[in-house]
């Protein structure tokens, strides 16, 4: 009963917050009275409803998701591998650290322009997504390894536990929260970076390319509708992944009991 009430309250608060900001948007629209600067919320939602019925809209979404997926997977694989190496080997850390710092502090635009010269427009968003996500995963994994409880490692060494068991039972559980937190961060950032790269590299099927079209044709309604779609899908993806992790954790606890 308590959970039910709490859940309802949370839903109510969220609804009130959304309605409040929609009212703010409507008020700004009424003050500005310029559809190019701020389109009417109703008009934007009506356009969004039209868009979701178009096959091309979903094709754009699917291709963008595909690019985020590939970029994030590459970053996860390489970031985890090199993060573990850097966590256990000081030389590896010193070697990679300047590269990661450089990638972190370079403006995304510089990378997009360079990548446009190096790759075809189809692959630039994947590369950019990877570049944004890799340093986060690398840093998190490396930190996770560095923060492994030395006393547990000492205990395992005394009891002559095999390296594989130490990896499975000490390193992996210790770095898991760092991995999950990094993963959840890069999903959101990777999504934004991919769309930004699409706006500049203009692949054929891409939500970013449609944003560019809306800008060229000074179509603020489309721009806002597409932005709403991007926000919605980003939130949906994050939610799916969070639920996936929660379910996995729940299943593990259940199997332990």
């Amino acid at each position: 009963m308590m959970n039910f009430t709490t859940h309802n309250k949370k839903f109510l608060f969220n609804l009130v917050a959304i309605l409040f900001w929609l009212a703010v948007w409507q008020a700004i629209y009424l003050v500005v009275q310029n559809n190019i600067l701020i389109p009417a919320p109703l008009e934007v939602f009506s356009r969004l409803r039209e868009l979701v019925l178009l096959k091309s809209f979903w094709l754009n979404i699917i291709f963008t998701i595909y690019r985020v997926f590939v970029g994030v997977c590459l970053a996860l694989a390489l970031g985890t591998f090199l993060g573990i190496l850097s966590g256990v080997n000081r030389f590896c850390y010193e070697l990679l650290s300047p590269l990661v710092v450089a990638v972190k502090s370079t403006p995304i635009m510089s990378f997009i322009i360079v990548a446009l010269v190096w790759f075809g427009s189809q692959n630039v968003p994947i590369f950019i997504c990877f570049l944004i996500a890799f340093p986060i995963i690398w840093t998190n994994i490396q930190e996770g390894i560095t923060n492994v409880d030395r006393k547990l490692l000492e205990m395992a060494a005394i009891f002559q536990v095999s390296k594989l068991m130490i990896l499975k039972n000490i390193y992996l559980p210790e770095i898991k929260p760092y991995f999950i937190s990094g993963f959840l961060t890069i999903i959101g950032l990777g999504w934004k970076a991919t769309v930004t790269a699409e706006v500049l590299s203009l692949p054929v099927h891409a939500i970013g390319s449609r944003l560019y079209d809306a800008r060229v044709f000074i179509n603020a309604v489309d721009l806002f509708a597409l932005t709403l779609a991007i926000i919605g899908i980003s939130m949906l993806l994050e939610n799916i992944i969070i639920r996936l992790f929660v379910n996995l954790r729940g299943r593990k606890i259940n199997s332990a009991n």
Partner: protein
Amino acid sequence: MPIEIKNLNKSYNGLQVIKNYHFTFQEGKIYCLYGPSGCGKTTLLHIIAGILPFNSGTITGTEKKRIAVVFQEDRLLPWLTAEENIKFVLGNKHFDAGKYLEVVGLKEFKKYHPHQLSGGMKRRVAIARALAYHGQVLLMDEPFKGIDEEVKRYIMDSILKEKEQIVIFSTHNLQEAAYMAHETIKFTNKIHN
């Protein structure tokens, strides 16, 4: 083969904790390191376990020996259950850890994680882990802290049954020393031979 310590010296930041220490720990005997906090009992146990370097001296007889340790902190893996913590050091997931958890009075708690156990119970799991390992050397740093008398007596009796191990444990409690140890080594503020 006994453990032989000769001319052992250990200092931390210029403070000499162990000075020219000599001792021979014989197989099949139980030794108690008795003394106040900070006198070097844990330092000596850690040196024998091989996890703490020393400044000078020699230790022989620990090479190639299986050493089990009950640390002052429990050092249990928080994501594993009590029985999984025992299986972890044995590297055998089919091992019957229940037998050793029974010795420490925790058979019904084998599926519990450390965060679900009290301080004394965690201590008992750490003892069960060390007993299950069947090392040739058993080192215990204040193993019975926080454990009630009845369970403590039962655990002590189980350790007394082991006839071939070298058992070295530290304590502040003279009764524990008198009940278990064949020999009590009294430490003062600094260890002198």
